[in-house]
C-alpha cells in the first residue's frame, strides 16, 4: 500500500514541488526588493537577515511552524518599527506586507520541509491527494493508514506464526488470537473468539489452571516464561505438550491491562525428549544391571564414565571418585601399563580388541581373570576420541577350563598309558568293529587298530590292515572266528579259546572282549612255542613211559632167565641129570652179567641228563684221534681203515660226552661191518644248509630205512645176533640232544653202508672255527 501511494503521487509531486520552489524564490526576490527600498534610508539589510530564522523554523517545524515563524518575525518587525514611529504609513504597510511575506515564505518552506520529512520518514508522498486537505490532515490520515498497515502487518505476522499467540484483557477475555491459536481451539475467525475465556475452549481443570497462572502474572507482574504444560487439542483430541510464555501488557502508566500469551507445540520435541530419556533409561539400565564392567575412556585412557559393576569392583560409591583416572590409578601400575599400551595402540590404529583374556591381581591377592573387548569411539568427523570397553569376570570359566585341561591332561595321560601298554604288550591286540547288513545282521568285521605285537605275530602290517574288512585281509570266504567274535560283540561276554590258525600256521590263544556293543578287541597270544613245548613235554613223558616200560621189561627178562634155568637146574639135579648143568649155569651167569650191564648203562643214561661236565673248546680232530686210539684194539682186530678228516671243526661242549658219542658211533660202525672185505670208517664234516654236520660213515651192512627211527630207541637192537645192550645209540641221541643238536642215520639199506650224522647247536660250534 505504501508503494501505491508513492507511485500515484510521483509526477504531480514533482511539479507541485517545482512550482512551490519557484513561488518561494519569486517572493523572496520581491521581498528583498521591497525591503531594500524601505531600508534604503536606513541603509541596512536587517529585513533579509530576519528571514533566516523563519526559514530555519519552517525547515524544522514544517508549514505551520514556518508560517508562525514568519508572522512572529513580521510582528516583531512591526512592533520595532511601529513603536519607533520613524516610518511613514508607506513604511508601515511595507512592514505589514513584509510580515505577511515572511509568513508565506515560512509556510512554503515548512511545507516543503514536511514533504521532505514525510518522504524521508515514511516513504509517503503526501503530495498525492492534496486536494482540499491540509498536509497535517494528510499526514494524520497517512499515519492512521500506517498504523493500520502496521497492525495488518503484525496480524499477518502473528497469523502466520506456528506458535499460538493471544492477548487477553484483565478479565481473561480474549482480545487477539492468532490463526494458530484460533485453529487450535477449533475456530476460524477472530470475531468468534472475542470476549471468550479459557473456560470456553478448555476443560475446566485446564482452564482453571490457565486462569490461575494468568492471575499470578497479573498480580505479580512477573512473566511466566517457557512453562511446559499438557494441553488437550480440541481438534485432534490428543494431549499435546505446550511451551507457554505469558507476559503482562502494561499501559502508559505501567498498569497491567492484559497479558500476551505465546504457546508453542512442543509435543514432537517432548516425544523426542521422552524417547531420548527412555533410551537413556535403557542404556542406564543396561549399564547398571549388566554383570560386565562397561567403561568409556578418553584419548588419554582416562575414565569418562563407567557402570555400577565397575564401581562395585573398584569399591567406590560415586562415579566422580574415579572419573578421570587411569587403569594404573585404579588397578595398579603393572596392569595399567599393559592396558595403556593396548589402548593407545587401539586408538591409533582403530583396530578393536576383541575377547582379550587378561588377569589382574586384586587387593585381596586373588587373581581376577577377565575377558575384555574394546572398540574405538569416534566423533562426528570420524576422529577417534576415546574408547568403550566391556570387561567380564571369567574366574569361574577359567577355573572350569583349568579343570578341564587338567582332566584332559589326565585323559591324555591315561591315553598315553594305554597306548604304551598297547604298543608294548607282547600279546597281539587288535580292535575291531562289527559290520552289519541292512537287516542288522553281522556279516563281517573291520580292523580298526592293531599293535606292533599283532604285526609281529601275524606278519600283517598296521597300515595295510587298518580299516580293512577281515574277509579281505585274511583272504577267507568267511572272516576268521566270525561266530565267536560276533557272539562277544553282541553279548559283551568275554571269551577265550585256543586255535590253530591255518593261514599263518601258528597256534593262537585268542581272548575276545567287547568294550562296547558292536566292537570287540582280540588279544592274540602266539602259543605255537608253548604248544611245541607241550608237545615236547608230551614226547618226553611218552619217552619216559617207554623207558620205564623198557627198563621193567629188559630187567625182568634176565631175571626170568636166571630163575627159569635155576629151576630147571634144580629139577635136573634132583632127577640126577647133569648133562645140561654147565650150560644152564653159564646162562644164569650171563643173564646176571647182562642185568648188571643194563643197570650200569641205565645209570649212565640217567647221569647224562643230570650231570654235565663244564663245557670247553674241543678240537674234534684231536678228540676223534683220541677215541680211535682207545678203540685201537677192535679196529685192528677187524682190520678197519679209519680216516679222520682234518677239517673237523672246533666245538664248544662237554668233551667227555662228545667223546662218548664218537666212541659209540665208531664202535657201532666196527660192529656192523658184516663181511666187508675192505672195512673203512670215515669221520668228517659237511655243511647242510649252513648247518655244520659231523658224520661217521662206514661201508658195513647198512640199516634198512624202516629202522632209521627205531635204532635210537632204548635197548632197541636190530640184530639179536650182535652183542650189546642196545643202549649205545640211545646214549648218543641223548648227548647230542643235550648239545642242542640232532642225530640221524643215512643208509641206502642193507649192504650199502651206514652214515650216522649229528649236529650241534650253533652256540656249540666254537667261534674259533668261524674265524678260520
Amino acid at each position, binding site marked *: 500500500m505504501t508503494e501505491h501511494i508513492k507511485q500515484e503521487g510521483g509526477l504531480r509531486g514533482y511539479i507541485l514541488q517545482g512550482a512551490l520552489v519557484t513561488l518561494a524564490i519569486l517572493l523572496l526576490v520581491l521581498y528583498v526588493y521591497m525591503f531594500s527600498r524601505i531600508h534604503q534610508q536606513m541603509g541596512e539589510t536587517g529585513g533579509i537577515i530576519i528571514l533566516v530564522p523563519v526559514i530555519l523554523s519552517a525547515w524544522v517545524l514544517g508549514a505551520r511552524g514556518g508560517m508562525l515563524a514568519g508572522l512572529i518575525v513580521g510582528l516583531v518587525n512591526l512592533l520595532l518599527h511601529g513603536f519607533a514611529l520613524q516610518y511613514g504609513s508607506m513604511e508601515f504597510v511595507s512592514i505589514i506586507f513584509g510580515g505577511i511575506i515572511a509568513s508565506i515564505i515560512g509556510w512554503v518552506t515548512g511545507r516543503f520541509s514536511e514533504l521532505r520529512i514525510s518522504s524521508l520518514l515514511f516513504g509517503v508522498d503526501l503530495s498525492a491527494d492534496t486536494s482540499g486537505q491540509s498536509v497535517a490532515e494528510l499526514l494524520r490520515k497517512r499515519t492512521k493508514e500506517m498504523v493500520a498497515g502496521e497492525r495488518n502487518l503484525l496480524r499477518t505476522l502473528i497469523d502466520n506464526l506456528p506458535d499460538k499467540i493471544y492477548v487477553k484483557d484483565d478479565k481473561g477475555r480474549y482480545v487477539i488470537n492468532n490463526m494458530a491459536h484460533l485453529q487450535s481451539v477449533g475456530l476460524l475467525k477472530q470475531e468468534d473468539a472475542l470476549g471468550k475465556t479459557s473456560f470456553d475452549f478448555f476443560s475446566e481443570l485446564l482452564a482453571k489452571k490457565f486462569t490461575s497462572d494468568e492471575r499470578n502474572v497479573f498480580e505479580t507482574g512477573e512473566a511466566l516464561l517457557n512453562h511446559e504444560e499438557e494441553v488437550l487439542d480440541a481438534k485432534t483430541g490428543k494431549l499435546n505438550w505446550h511451551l507457554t510464555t505469558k507476559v503482562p501488557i502494561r499501559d502508559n502508566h505501567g498498569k497491567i491491562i492484559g497479558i500476551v500469551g505465546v504457546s508453542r507445540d512442543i509435543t514432537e520435541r517432548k516425544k523426542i525428549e521422552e524417547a531420548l530419556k527412555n533410551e537413556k533409561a535403557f542404556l542406564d539400565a543396561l549399564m547398571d544391571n549388566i554383570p560386565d564392567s562397561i567403561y568409556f575412556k578418553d584419548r588419554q585412557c582416562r575414565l569418562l564414565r563407567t557402570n555400577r559393576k565397575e564401581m562395585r569392583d573398584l569399591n567406590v560409591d560415586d562415579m566422580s571418585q574415579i572419573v578421570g583416572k587411569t587403569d594404573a590409578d585404579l588397578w595398579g601400575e603393572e596392569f595399567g601399563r599393559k592396558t595403556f599400551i593396548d589402548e593407545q595402540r587401539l586408538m591409533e590404529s582403530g583396530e578393536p580388541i576383541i575377547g582379550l583374556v587378561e588377569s589382574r591381581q586384586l587387593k585381596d591377592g586373588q587373581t581376577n581373570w577377565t575377558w575384555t573387548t574394546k572398540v574405538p569411539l569416534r566423533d562426528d568427523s570420524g576422529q577417534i576420541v576415546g574408547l568403550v570397553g566391556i570387561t567380564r569376570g571369567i574366574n569361574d570359566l577359567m577355573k572350569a577350563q583349568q579343570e578341564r585341561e587338567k582332566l584332559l591332561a589326565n585323559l591324555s595321560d591315561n591315553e598315553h598309558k594305554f597306548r604304551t601298554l598297547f604298543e608294548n604288550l607282547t600279546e597281539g591286540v587288535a580292535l575291531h568293529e562289527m559290520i552289519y547288513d541292512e537287516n542288522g545282521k553281522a556279516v563281517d568285521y573291520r580292523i580298526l587298530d592293531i599293535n606292533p605285537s599283532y604285526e609281529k605275530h601275524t606278519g600283517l602290517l598296521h597300515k595295510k590292515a587298518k580299516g580293512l574288512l577281515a574277509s579281505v585281509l585274511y583272504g577267507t570266504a568267511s572272516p576268521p572266528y566270525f561266530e565267536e567274535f560276533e557272539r562277544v560283540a553282541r553279548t559283551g561276554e568275554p571269551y577265550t579259546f585256543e586255535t590253530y590258525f591255518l593261514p599263518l600256521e601258528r597256534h593262537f590263544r585268542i581272548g575276545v572282549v567287547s568294550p562296547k556293543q558292536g566292537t570287540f578287541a582280540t588279544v592274540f597270544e602266539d602259543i605255537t612255542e608253548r604248544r611245541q613245548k607241550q608237545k615236547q613235554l608230551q614226547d618226553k613223558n611218552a619217552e619216559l613211559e617207554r623207558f620205564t616200560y623198557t627198563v621193567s621189561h629188559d630187567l625182568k627178562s634176565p631175571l*626170568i*632167565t636166571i*630163575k*627159569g634155568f635155576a629151576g*630147571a637146574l634144580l629139577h635136573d639135579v634132583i632127577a640126577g641129570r647133569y648133562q645140561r648143568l654147565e650150560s644152564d649155569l653159564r*646162562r644164569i651167569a650171563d643173564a646176571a652179567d647182562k642185568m648188571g650191564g643194563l643197570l650200569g648203562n641205565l645209570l649212565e643214561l640217567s647221569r647224562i641228563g643230570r650231570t654235565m661236565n663244564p663245557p670247553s673248546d674241543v678240537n674234534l680232530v684231536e678228540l676223534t684221534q683220541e677215541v680211535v686210539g682207545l678203540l685201537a684194539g677192535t679196529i685192528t682186530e677187524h682190520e678197519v681203515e679209519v680216516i679222520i678228516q682234518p677239517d673237523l671243526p672246533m666245538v664248544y661242549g662237554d668233551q667227555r660226552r662228545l667223546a662218548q658219542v664218537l666212541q659209540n658211533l665208531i664202535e657201532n660202525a666196527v660192529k656192523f661191518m658184516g663181511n666187508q672185505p675192505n672195512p673203512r670208517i670215515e669221520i668228517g664234516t659237511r655243511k647242510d644248509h649252513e648247518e655244520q654236520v659231523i658224520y661217521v660213515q662206514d661201508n658195513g651192512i647198512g640199516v634198512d630205512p624202516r629202522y632209521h627211527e627205531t635204532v635210537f630207541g632204548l635197548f632197541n637192537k*636190530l*640184530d*639179536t645176533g650182535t652183542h650189546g645192550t642196545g643202549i649205545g645209540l640211545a646214549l648218543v641221541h641223548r648227548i647230542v640232544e643235550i648239545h642242542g643238536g640232532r642225530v640221524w642215520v643215512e643208509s641206502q639199506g642193507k649192504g650199502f653202508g651206514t652214515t650216522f650224522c649229528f649236529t650241534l647247536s650253533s652256540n656249540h660250534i666254537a667261534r674259533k672255527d668261524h674265524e678260520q
Partner: protein
Amino acid sequence: MIGKPLTILLVEDNPDHAELVKRNLEEFQVANHIYHVEDGEAALDYVYKQGTYSDQKKYPRPDLILLDLRLPRIDGLEVLKQIKSDLTLQAIPIVVLTTSDAEKDLAQAYEYHANSYVTKPVNFENFSRLLRDLGYYWLAWNKRPW
C-alpha cells in the same frame, strides 16, 4: 596124548627164554614141532612163507603162535596186527607170551585180536605149569578146523 601134536611158531628174541619154553613144551610132549624165530620180521616171513621160510614142507603153517611183544626190527604187536588182519592167517591162534604186564600192551593185544595173553612167570615152577597147561589146552581141549 590126545589129538595130533601141534606145530608151534615161537617168536622170541631172548634165546634163554626160547630154550626154557622149548624145554618145557618138549618135556610135556605137547608139540611135535617148535619153530623158533628171533624177531618180528622173521615171524612175518615165516607165516607169509617168504625168504628163508619159503619151503612149505620145511616150515609148515603153525597151529599156534607163541608171540613175545618186545622184538627187534618189527614189534610183536605189529606182527599180531598184521596176522590178525590177514584173512588167510587170522585163524591161527596167537598166544601173547611176554614179560610185559603193562596194561597198555594187554589192551592193545586184545584189540588186535590176540587169542590169549599170558605173562612169563618169574618163578620156574609157575613157568613150567603155565606151559604145560597151555599146551594141554590147545592140544587136548581146543578143537581145530584143520
